[in-house]
């Protein structure tokens, strides 16, 4: 786990007088599953907006697979798959049409598009829903389609921005397990933002973001030991001063 997939150095971002991120440093290694923990308003979504090039940081740099997102955004974005917090499926299109749209935006050759889509949907148990309108899917299945879509172009990094919000516990657990498996099977690195601490328990590392600052990082066990609390959830509450 030495090769760095993404590196964030000294990143800051303000909205007017509000500092959303303040001098954040973090690295995501190849094959690593990193949980980004933070209460609402901690700056997680802002960090994701910067990592996906939707915003640019006021200070600092973000390098994805050796490409600075400010200088060569296209190359940086080619290596990223994202599941946004807000649903981003076109509900009027079929599942397959949504996925084809993504493949074309990412320049995947038409000859392999169909196989890739079938493969990803099969892995998630949605192969029989390919022709259905996205609108007809349950919340959990919509998220699965968004996850399949994020993986279609074979990204090196998967960004999950509070992707389980609004899902029932079973759907949440399935999604976490699936991403963990994919992480362990291949070379994909995952940054999983959440405020639900149980999702971070099996992460290789957890980062704690609070009021725009990265206040702690380490394995879940280390964070527990550091705070001398019995669980990661309590350690998180302790670190963010909610206790």
């Amino acid at each position, binding site marked *: 786990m030495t090769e760095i997939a993404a590196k964030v150095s000294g990143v800051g971002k303000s909205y007017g007088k509000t500092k959303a991120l303040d001098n954040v440093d973090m690295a995501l290694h190849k094959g690593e599953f990193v949980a980004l923990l933070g209460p609402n308003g901690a700056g997680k979504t802002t960090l994701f907006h910067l990592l996906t090039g939707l915003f640019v940081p006021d200070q600092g740099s973000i390098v994805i697979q050796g490409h600075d997102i400010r200088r060569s955004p296209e190359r940086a974005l080619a290596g990223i798959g994202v599941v946004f917090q807000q649903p981003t499926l*076109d509900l009027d*299109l079929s599942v397959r049409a949504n996925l084809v749209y993504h493949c074309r935006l990412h*320049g995947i050759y038409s000859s392999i598009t169909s196989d890739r889509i079938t493969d990803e949907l099969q892995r998630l148990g949605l192969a029989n829903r390919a022709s259905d309108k996205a609108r007809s899917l349950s919340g959990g299945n919509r998220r699965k389609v968004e996850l399949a879509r994020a993986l279609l172009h074979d990204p090196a990094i998967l960004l999950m921005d509070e992707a389980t919000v609004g899902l029932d516990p079973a759907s949440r657990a399935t999604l976490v397990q699936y991403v963990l498996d994919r992480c362990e099977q291949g070379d994909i690195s995952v940054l999983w933002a959440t405020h639900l601490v149980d999702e971070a328990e099996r992460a290789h590392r957890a980062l704690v973001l609070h009021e725009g600052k990265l206040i702690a990082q380490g394995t879940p066990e280390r964070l527990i030991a550091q705070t001398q609390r019995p669980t990661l959830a309590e350690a998180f509450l302790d670190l963010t001063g909610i206790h």
Partner: protein
Amino acid sequence: MKSNHALQAFTAVGGREVIKFLHQKGRLFSALVRPALWLLVFAVGFQNVFGVAVLPPYETYIEYQVYIAPGLMGMVLLFNGMQSSLAMVYDREMGLMRLLLTAPLPRWYLLLCKLGAGTLLSVLQVYAFLILCMLFRVDIPWSGWIYALPAIVLSGLMLGALGLLLSVHIKQLENFAGTMNFVIFPMFFISSALYPLWKLQEAGAEIVYQLARFNPFAHAVELIRFALYGQVNGVALTVVVGCLVSFFALAVYGYNPQRGVLMRRPRPG
């Protein structure tokens, strides 16, 4: 940016617009009913009131329906341009814009794809309207159908770029009605779409006349009007191309990630 990738992205964005258009069965109907009403009710009713003198590009006296046809073609382009703007705001609210703008392609190109796709629909609707004109025996030369194509495309792009620019500034879908009132109607009425501009001058409406001279929509209408008769209106062409470049450049600037137009009021997280 590889050409194959660029082409694929254009087919993706264009294909989505076309599929959505085909799904909205009433859209083509309403796009045609609007100008058809003007052509068949307004123009017929007023043809004896509005005497149109011989003026370029016409070489003889013409029916009023012939006069307003280019204006109504412009109307189709104007409404569709604004509809594209509405679609952009909708996509932004629904999060679909994020998906588009995180594609590994230059942002200006992605916006150009959107503009091109919207214009494609505009042009198709204008030709559907031309068929309607033919059915109702409005005397438009056949050659004009071909000559006017570049003018229709350029005007469609210019008005689409205006829609793109407006979508930067329309914060919410609910504000769209305001755009209709403050953009579409003034642009349409303060132009040469329904009456030649000298009529305004003759009527002493000097301010309206001056406003119309600076209205890019009026120039789009004149560009199409002249093109239908195989002529190029140099001033109109210059204004339309100038406005197209300016509107598009401003829209690209508006969608710059530095300005963060996608999420003006970022949600906490």
